[in-house]
């Protein structure tokens, strides 16, 4: 049980870090009005968000009863 708990906590931490990176990419891209900023937002930001949100959702479904 404690192993499951620490594993979930680790997943939540990694998910959180990925989301903070995604949000930082978004905040940076919004300071710049250029097509490259949109690409950075879409691909780099999207990668971090996708990873973070999917990992969070996975940690929910992998949590035992």
């Amino acid at each position, binding site marked *: 049980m404690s192993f499951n708990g620490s594993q979930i906590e680790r997943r939540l931490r990694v998910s959180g870090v990925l989301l*903070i990176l995604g949000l930082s990419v978004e905040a940076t891209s919004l300071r710049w009005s250029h097509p490259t900023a949109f690409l950075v*937002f879409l691909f780099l930001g999207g990668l971090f968000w996708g990873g973070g949100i999917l990992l*969070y959702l996975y940690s929910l479904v992998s949590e035992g009863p």
Partner: protein
Amino acid sequence: MIGPTAILSILIALSVTLITILVIWPSITTTRGGKILAFLALFILPMLCAAMGASEHLERSKQTQFCLSCHIMEPYGKSLYVDDPKYLAAAHLQNHRVRPDQACYTCHTDYVLYGGMKAKLRGLRHVYVQYLATPSKPIRLYHPYNNRECLHCHAGARSFEEGAVHNADPQTLPAVRANKLSCLSSGCHEVVHNVAQLDKVKFWKVAQ
């Protein structure tokens, strides 16, 4: 009045703060309140920030400054300041017939259902061509310019409907409305950007 960018910045800051709390103390998610906080901070708020960010970026892509940030568009931006009323794009910008901050988008979007969406998809293609392919020189429109884009603003306007040249021949206005007689390439308003001639023209110096 707080603008959408400020609201988005506040949301991003709030999300980062809540996520940081969860990263430092993930054990709080064992409680009911902690689970709700985690769902809010790790799912709802990031999704909201992503959606608002995408909307903000799409809105910014309408800006003249955005279009002209690509090197290849530089002469087209310059042509907006030609000091000659025959230059159609310049006359529209300088007399505020189009919003100066959305000059390119106003004339180059399609005024049909999903026209704005199509314009944005074409914009993505432009980015692809700019970085991964070779843009044609000179750049060209995808289709001959449709009168519909001009008529979106000019139809019903007195200067257009009652203009002497437009009414000299009773066939002219119906042909223009049916896009059978082009506003731009029928010898009427054919000087649009004319970037090849920019080294031979005078430029309007905007009063500060």
